[in-house]
């Protein structure tokens, strides 16, 4: 469904992604693992074309989306949930969801405001509150819900477990498993190996913008030296 090959991305003159390549199949949940600064966020931004890769190719559903404007990438079925959440703090929860709303599509689960409020009951109670009045966990739910309003085929979740309470992390894991059931394809970036193992089918480890491992968690268990070298446990 998503195919990345030979991706090179820069921030100014700093080389962040180095010939990165991997594929994701429909219905899969893939975890992008690596330390701080390994290039996880840049990978996601490069897929969304928020960072323009210098070279390489991103193909989605058989179509080359490299150099497409970000809003077209989003409309094409890629939903991006940024690490910093970036909710619109002056807008109410309902208005935040409205910004994300896009037309339904036949080949992806469709979401409505009501369905999302069922999924995230906390948001439902506070639907008329402004974004700035929400807690970290609530903001995290809102940013996911907002992206789902675009009915994406593939969801990019950047560090969904970061900076939120353990209870909410558990809830988040259940939610991601629920997305999988619905048939959504998901890429999450994580530093929390435990969390990743619960929700994901496959792990991709990157370090200095290069792919160091690509396989199941069972395979990863068998190679503890890789885990020790590239992940901080």
């Amino acid at each position: 469904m998503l195919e990345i090959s030979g991706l090179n991305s820069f921030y100014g003159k700093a080389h962040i992604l180095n010939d990165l390549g991997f594929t994701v199949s429909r219905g899969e949940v893939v975890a992008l693992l690596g330390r701080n600064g390994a290039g996880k966020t840049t990978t996601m931004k490069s897929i969304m074309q928020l960072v323009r890769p210098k070279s390489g190719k991103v193909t989605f559903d058989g179509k080359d989306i490299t150099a497409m404007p970000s809003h077209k990438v989003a409309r094409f079925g890629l939903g991006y949930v940024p690490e910093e959440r970036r909710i619109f703090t002056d807008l109410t929860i309902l208005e935040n969801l409205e910004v994300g709303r896009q037309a339904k599509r036949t080949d992806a689960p469709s979401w409505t405001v009501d369905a999302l409020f069922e999924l995230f009951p906390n948001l439902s109670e506070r639907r008329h509150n402004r974004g700035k009045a929400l807690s970290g966990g609530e903001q995290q739910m809102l940013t996911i819900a907002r992206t789902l309003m675009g009915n994406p085929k593939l969801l990019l979740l950047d560090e969904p477990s970061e900076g939120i309470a353990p209870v909410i992390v558990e809830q988040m894991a259940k939610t991601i498993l629920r997305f999988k059931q619905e048939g959504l394809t998901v890429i999450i970036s994580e530093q929390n190996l435990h969390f990743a193992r619960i929700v994901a089918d496959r792990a991709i480890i990157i370090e200095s913008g290069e792919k160091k491992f690509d396989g199941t968690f069972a395979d990863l268990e068998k190679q503890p030296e890789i885990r020790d070298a590239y992940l901080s446990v």
Partner: protein
Amino acid sequence: MGLFVAQLLTGLANAAALFLVASGLSLIFGVTRIVNFAHGSLYMLGAYFGVTLMHMLPGVFGFWGSILLSGLIVGLIGIVIEICVLRPVYRAPELFQLVATFGVILVIQDLTLMIWGAEDQLGPRAPGLKSVVRILGEPVPQYDLALIAITPVILLGLWWLIAKTRVGILVRAATQDREMVGALGVNQSWLFTGVFFLGSMLAGLGGAIQLPKGGADLLMDLNIIAAVFVVVVIGGMGSIPGAFVAAVLISVLNVFGVSYLPQSTLVLMYVVMAVVLLVRPYGLFGREEKAGEHGQVGEPERPIRPAGMRGRMLVAALLAALALVPLFGGNFTQVLITDILIFCLFAASLQFMLSTGGLVSFGHAAYFGGGAYAAALLVTYAGSPMELAFLFAPLAAGLLAIIFGWFCIRLSGVYFAMLTLAFSQLVWSLVFQWYDVTGGDDGLVNIWPAEWLSGTTAFYYFTLIVGVGGIILLRHLTHAPLGYTLRATRDSARQAEATGINVKRVQWVAFATAGAMAGLAGGLFVFSKGSIFPNELEIGKSFDALIVVFLGGVKTLSGGVVGAAFMESAKDWLTRLEYWRLVLGLVIIGVVIIAPDGIVGTLRKVSERVGLRRSEEFMK
């Protein structure tokens, strides 16, 4: 009582056009972060289109239809401006965008002159609303009452659009985080264009709707823009209700000012603004703007270093040539070079705060003209000798800069720019209206230099020494600790603060220094001309300085001087053209889009490419 009510109603009616223009400006700023200096020009176009259409379309429907059509046409012109001029510079630093919209002002001025001619156009009166109504015995024009009724309807309409519709939600979201809105599948380009259309339309409507009260003339663009800035600064940038409240406040105050303090109508507005900003730096309804929120844009700054051997030789040769000019050149050449040197010093003083300090002042003329007037007043009223009065010019200008700077440096970015402009307008209006002291429009005359400097050649050498000395001093300051800390505050105010630099104080010192040096240029100016008039304090004068710094190259040290020398020499030739503003405006827009490095920056890049100059390899 009756008179009071009648005046209140007049004030409310006058607020209509001001509110329309200010809300359009505010709306555009909120989403695109661009302060559209050309907004006054769109207002002017609305008025001209209105006059033409009203003559073609008769009757009540014709009148109101013309107003709507004018708004629509101006909205479409706004789209053209957005697509052709602003889209290429959305990612450029703020200053580039501001200068680009200033280029648009010049272009529209000359196009308007071409199409409608120089004659003022009388605004037709509104059919069916030509008479007056007696309220508490006082006559109130019916059209005023119509305006008073219409304005809240427009306010409500805008509020509904922003608060309740999907477009409004997207606009508010984009005001906060444009990139995220794009990542959620919204086409930002169209959102921007749409907002620009709406904002421009509001300005056009404002121009057309005030026709029965004001007519149309070629000065109304710059005349309203200062008032509009005051309104948005008082109301808070990006706030529509703020624009309404402030427009009403300023208009009502103005009407009462005319009756009770006729000498101070213009000044009053700026005093109110200063008071509001003292209490609420971001306006009545504004939100605090965090520094560095939008990040660094454009190429990183190059490190600056003292001129190399070749550079010094070049400057020395140039100075030697200038010193020899009186031996060969006639009177005309000496006067021309004197003018150029004065303008170079003025531009260098702006460049010091703008390029080295990142403080984009739109009101630098206040210190140039302020210094000139200070010296002239001293000569006129105290009969003081020229030497004393000349020294007083930079002192007075520096003092003025210390006072205004205290207000201005509390803000940053576009807020800072608008506040500096408003303060310069304060000085201008004071000089313009205080006829008894400053002579108003007639200026101050017979301000001649002392005996020993009275010849053209003597004053030429005096200007050469003082002017070049001032420029070298400013350049030296850039390489002194003040310059280093100033650059630190420009590049990252927060990091500078964290390393122990008192950011605001450093900026204040830079502001005052730049003001004093501009005053020095003003002192040279007044004694070279023998007179001074309020136009040396006008917005146009401040813009002249900005434009030469920009043309010369913002990110260079010598850009201001080179740009000023180039411009002042070219002006003589340029102003002979009938539509020189059009040419200049197009050149400015072209430079912003194609060669944003300016003359010096572009020359440097070219010479690096052909290998004449070592490039900054270590930057890579």
